C-alpha cells in the first residue's frame, strides 16, 4: 500500500510573535530567528500514516511530499526519521504562501502526485501553518478525482476501502470510502512520534527527490482565485494579571461582572 503524505513547511508557529516580521512593502512575512518547521497539522497526518504502517510494516510505504518555494532538507529529515520511507520535495520561485492560494497549491501537488505514480491513500493535514486555509486536501482530491474525507481522527485501510473516523460535533462518525482516496487528518489523530537516535541516523540514507518546477513540467505557479492584498500585525490586548486567592476567585469575578 502506498501512502502519500502531503507536508508543508512553514515558519515554526510556536516561535515568538515578533519572529513573524511583516515586510509590508513586499507583502511578505520574513521569519526572524525561527526555523521552518513541518506544519504541525501535517505532522498529525504523518502520524496517521505511520499508524497504518505500524499495522503492516512490510507492505505500507509512505512517501512524504513537500512543496514550497524552498524546502529544508533537514526539516524534511524529521519526517523520514519518524518513519516515512522516502520524500519528494518540489521547490520553485513563486511557491511561497504569499503568492499561492489553495487551488494553485492543490494543482501543484496534483502534478507532483501524478509524477510520483500510483498511490492508494493520500493524507494531508487539516490546514497549513502559514495560510491556515484548510482547503488544499479536498481540492487536491477533486483534481485527482478521488473521494475525500476530512477531519479524520483515525484512518484504517483495508484492501479496497478505508474506514475513516471523522470528528463531528460531540462525537464522531465512521465513514467508509473506496481506495484510492484522500483523507484530511485532524489534530485528533495524535502527535507525531519522536524518532530515536538510530532512526535519525538512518533517515539520512533514505531517498529524497528534489524536483524543480521545470522537472514538474510547470512553467509558473498555476492560476489562483484568492489574492493576498495586505498583511498586518494582529492587535493584541495587553493584560495586567491581578493575583488573588482561590477562595476569593468567585467573589472577585462576580464583583467585576465577569460571571
Amino acid at each position, binding site marked *: 500500500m502506498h501512502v502519500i503524505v502531503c507536508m508543508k513547511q512553514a515558519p515554526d508557529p510556536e516561535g515568538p510573535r515578533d519572529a513573524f516580521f511583516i515586510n509590508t512593502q513586499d507583502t511578505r512575512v520574513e521569519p526572524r*530567528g525561527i*526555523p521552518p518547521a513541518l506544519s504541525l497539522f501535517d505532522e498529525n497526518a504523518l502520524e496517521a500514516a505511520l499508524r497504518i504502517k505500524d499495522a503492516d510494516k512490510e507492505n505500507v510505504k509512505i512517501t512524504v511530499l513537500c512543496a514550497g518555494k524552498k524546502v529544508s532538507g*533537514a526539516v524534511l529529515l524529521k519526517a523520514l526519521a519518524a518513519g516515512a520511507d522516502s520524500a519528494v520535495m518540489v521547490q520553485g520561485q513563486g511557491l511561497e504562501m504569499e503568492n499561492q492560494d489553495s487551488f494553485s497549491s492543490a494543482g501543484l501537488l496534483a502534478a507532483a502526485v501524478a509524477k510520483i505514480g500510483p498511490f492508494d491513500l493520500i493524507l494531508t493535514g487539516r490546514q497549513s501553518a502559514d495560510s491556515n486555509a484548510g482547503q488544499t486536501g479536498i481540492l487536491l482530491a477533486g483534481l485527482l478525482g478521488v473521494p475525500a474525507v476530512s477531519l479524520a481522527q483515525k484512518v484504517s485501510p483495508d484492501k479496497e476501502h478505508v474506514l475513516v473516523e471523522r470528528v463531528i460535533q460531540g462525537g464522531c462518525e465512521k465513514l467508509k470510502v473506496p481506495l484510492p482516496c484522500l483523507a484530511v487528518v485532524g489534530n485528533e489523530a495524535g502527535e507525531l512520534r519522536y*524518532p530515536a537516535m538510530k532512526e535519525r541516523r538512518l533517515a539520512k540514507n533514505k531517498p529524497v527527490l528534489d524536483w524543480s518546477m521545470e522537472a514538474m513540467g510547470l512553467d509558473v505557479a498555476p492560476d489562483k482565485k484568492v489574492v493576498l492584498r495586505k498583511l498586518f500585525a494582529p492587535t493584541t490586548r495587553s493584560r495586567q494579571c491581578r493575583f488573588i486567592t482561590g477562595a476569593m476567585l468567585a467573589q472577585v469575578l462576580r464583583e467585576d461582572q465577569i460571571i
Partner: protein
Amino acid sequence: MALSDYHYEMSHCHRCSYCKFIPFQLIKSKRFSYLCPSITLRNFHSFSAGGRAALGLAIAEGRLDQYTEMMKQIVFECTMCGACQVQCRTFNFNLNPIEVMQALRTHFVEQGEIVPEHMFVIEGLKREDNVFGEPKKHRGDWAEGLGLKDISREKVDVLLHVGCRMSFDDEFWSVLKMAVEIMQCSGLSVGIAGSEESCCGGRALEMGFEGVFNTFAEAMAGRVKASGAKQVVTLCADCYGTFQEHYPSHGWGLDAEVVHITQFISHLIDQGKLKFKNKIPLSVTYHDPCHLGRRGEPGVQWKGEYKRLAPHLFGPVPEKPIRLGRNGCYDAPRDILQAIPGVELTEMERTREYSWCCGAGGGVLEAFEEMAEKTAHERLLEAEATGAQALVTACPWCERNFRDTLDSSGGSLKIYDIVELVHQAMGGE
C-alpha cells in the same frame, strides 16, 4: 538583529587574517599561534571569521542564489568560542565577528538550512526542556536525598542552576553533590528547580534558533524571579555565558546576580568560610572555558545603526560597546587553585581571552565529531606541553569533551573539575 543589519561590519572586514591567530603581540610560539579551531581544521579561509563575514555579506547582498551543504558546514562547523572577536580589533574597531556569525546562523536556520543534528536537539529541547531530549522528570534525580530546597515550594537565597549536561550526565552527579556541600558552607539557603528546571537556551541560540532561545530565556527569567533568589549559581560555563552575555544582549534580565561556582568558592575562601585541610600535591594547568572567559563577559543590548559621522567616516550610533572578552571570569578559578595547598599552577601558552577552545561549544559536539575531537586534542597537547599532571577546568562540557578525547587518543593527563579539587582539599571524600 538580522543578517543584513550587520552589513557595515561584514563589508569592513580587512581580510587581515588576524581572526585566525592569537594577537601577534602575545604569540609565544609558532606551534600554538593559532586560535581559531575552524580554520585550523578546515583550512579554507571560508572557515574563519573573515570568511564567514564575506559569506554573510554575499548572502545579504543577494550574490548567492542557493545554499549548499558546504555553506552550511562553513556556518556551523564553529564552536562559537569567540576567539575571533577578541583578535579582530587590530585593524578595525567596528567589527563584531561573533555577532555576525550568530546572525549568520540565525539566518540559516530561518532559511531552513539547518544541521539535522541540531534540529533534533531543538526538537528534544522543545519537548523535554533539555538538549538531550531526556525525560524532563529525571532532571532533578541527581539531588535525590540531598534535602535541597525546591524553589517551587519555598523561597531561597541561592538558586543552583544545574544545566542540562550535569543534570543528565551522571558522571557529573558526584561533582554536583560536592558543589552542594561546598555551597552549604556559605550558610545561605540553596535551592534548585529540580525537574522543573529547564535549559538556559544558550545552545539553542548558538545553533541559530533564536526564537527557541527567547522562549527559554523568558521562562528562566520567570523562574528566577519566582524563586526569590539573590544569586543564581551555575557550574556550567555554557549556562554562565548564556546568562552573562546572551540574556542581556537579547533584552532578558535575571533578577539575580549570576555567579559561577568558581566565583562563589573564591568568595567563600575570601570570607574565610572555606578552609582547606588537605594538601594536594599536583601540578595542574587550567583551561579557561570560552563561555566562562571571553564569552562570559557581560553582554549589552545595542539598538542602533551605523551612521555617517563625516564624509567617509561611519560609526555606530550610539556607540556600540566594544567587547573583547576581558571582563570574563578568569581570576576566580586561578585564585582557588593557588589557594589549594600543594597545587602548582602552570599556565598554557593560550590562556584567558586567548584560550584555545575545548571543541564542545556552539553545537559542534552534537554535529561535528571530528572537529570536537581534534580541537580538544590540540588543547590536550598544549596542556601536556606545560608538563602538568592534570588539566583542570570549570565546565562540564569541556570536561566531557576532554575526557572522551583522552579516551580515544590516550595520554596520562588527568582531567578535573575545579570543584573536585576544592572538595578534596576541604577534606571531603
